[in-house]
């Protein structure tokens, strides 16, 4: 009889352990939200959206809207198109989020949607090239170039910035779409080679070679401005 009791206790203990183990596997994020990585927190939000919580997608939009807008703007150099294409990208992501299985990070997946949306737009409108620029935040900006330009007088600086901006955007538009995408993602959005390879669905080696070529071409285009 005591043996039976011990056996039952043992089995129930094993069962409890296995239940806890299953919980630990299936819900690895519960109770440790502070230590969650960006990928994991995105995945939690995605799961909420997939289970019908539409508001959870708003959080993802707020989190990534600036980066998505930025990558599209840097690819198109047109702020009106960038607005529409960003909206399209988020809507596409929302509509197909049910098919997102979490194999890659949500961020990579979203970037891929945005890049593909931009590329198909550029392909469709390759004969219609119209640039419209965002304003450069001179006061809040923190880049080195603004510090260099800060030495200029107040009348000269805005003109110089406008000129640099125009020449840079023109030079970017002379690159092929693939080379432009690589340079935008690496130099401006500061993504890794691996991330770019995932987004562009190519090898890391291809990313490196495209980056090298794109920088070389940009340098020759901007030779007048550089050393």
């Amino acid at each position, binding site marked *: 009889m005591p043996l039976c009791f011990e056996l039952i206790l043992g089995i129930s203990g094993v069962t409890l352990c296995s239940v806890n183990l299953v919980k630990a596997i299936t819900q690895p994020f519960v109770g440790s939200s502070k230590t969650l990585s960006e990928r994991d927190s995105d995945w939690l939000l995605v799961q909420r959206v997939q289970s019908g919580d*539409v508001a959870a*997608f*708003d959080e993802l*939009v*707020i989190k990534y*809207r*600036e980066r998505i*807008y*930025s990558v599209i*703007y*840097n690819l198109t150099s047109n*702020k009106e198109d960038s*607005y529409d294409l*960003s*909206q399209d990208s*988020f*809507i596409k992501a*929302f*509509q197909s989020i049910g098919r997102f299985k979490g194999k890659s990070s949500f961020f990579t997946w979203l970037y891929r949607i945005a890049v593909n949306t931009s590329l198909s737009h550029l392909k469709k409108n390759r004969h219609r090239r119209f640039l419209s*620029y*965002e*304003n*450069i*935040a*001179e006061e809040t*900006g923190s*880049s*080195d*170039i*603004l510090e*260099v*330009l800060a030495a200029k007088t107040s009348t000269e600086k805005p003109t*110089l*910035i406008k000129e*640099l*901006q125009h020449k*840079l*955007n023109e030079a*970017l538009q002379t690159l092929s779409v693939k080379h432009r995408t690589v*340079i935008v993602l690496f*130099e*401006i959005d500061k993504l890794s080679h691996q991330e770019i390879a995932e987004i562009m669905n190519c090898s890391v080696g291809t990313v490196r070679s495209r980056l090298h070529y794109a*920088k070389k071409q*940009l*340098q020759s285009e*901007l030779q*007048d*401005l*550089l*050393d």
Partner: protein
Amino acid sequence: MPNNPNNLDLDQLLDLKREEKPAEDFWDGFQKDFRQRQLQALIKKESSWNRLAPAFFARSNIFVPLSAAVVVALFVLIVNFQENAPLQSEYYDAVIMAEESGAQLSNVSESSTQESVLPIIAESITEEPATQAAASFVMDLIPNDEPESLSYTREFPTSTIPSDNRFVAALVSYTISHDSPTFGMAMRQQTVGF
């Protein structure tokens, strides 16, 4: 001479691109527009479902008998089709039957043929002696996909045509004598379409 009074390099220039940002209030409008488009996407998704769903599920009182009627109709059609479809052996049976009936009809006396309303086709008599004496019209039942060797004919004695129906008799007589397409069926040699 270098045209670079500010000592800029490419990385610094690309940094400038990072400073091209919309203003803060821009994002309020962006978010508002997105919510509107998201709502439209949801409504569109639901409305397409709502259009289809009632037709199948909501009006189940119509759907059930309707589908039952469709199933019964399909069943009847399939059974009829299978019954009417000639088997391979039926072709051979028909050929044998036609030959036998041709032989029998060749023995029919002249008087019996004179009773018939229909004349005999001159061409067919010369080419096929077995059916010379047979006052009959033959319906071509050769399917399009069958080879010629598998063709068969079904013969109807002219006596099957009611003698009092002069209109039909005249029409058939005209058809035979002119050997032309009638009633949408092509006439062949030794064959009369009807």
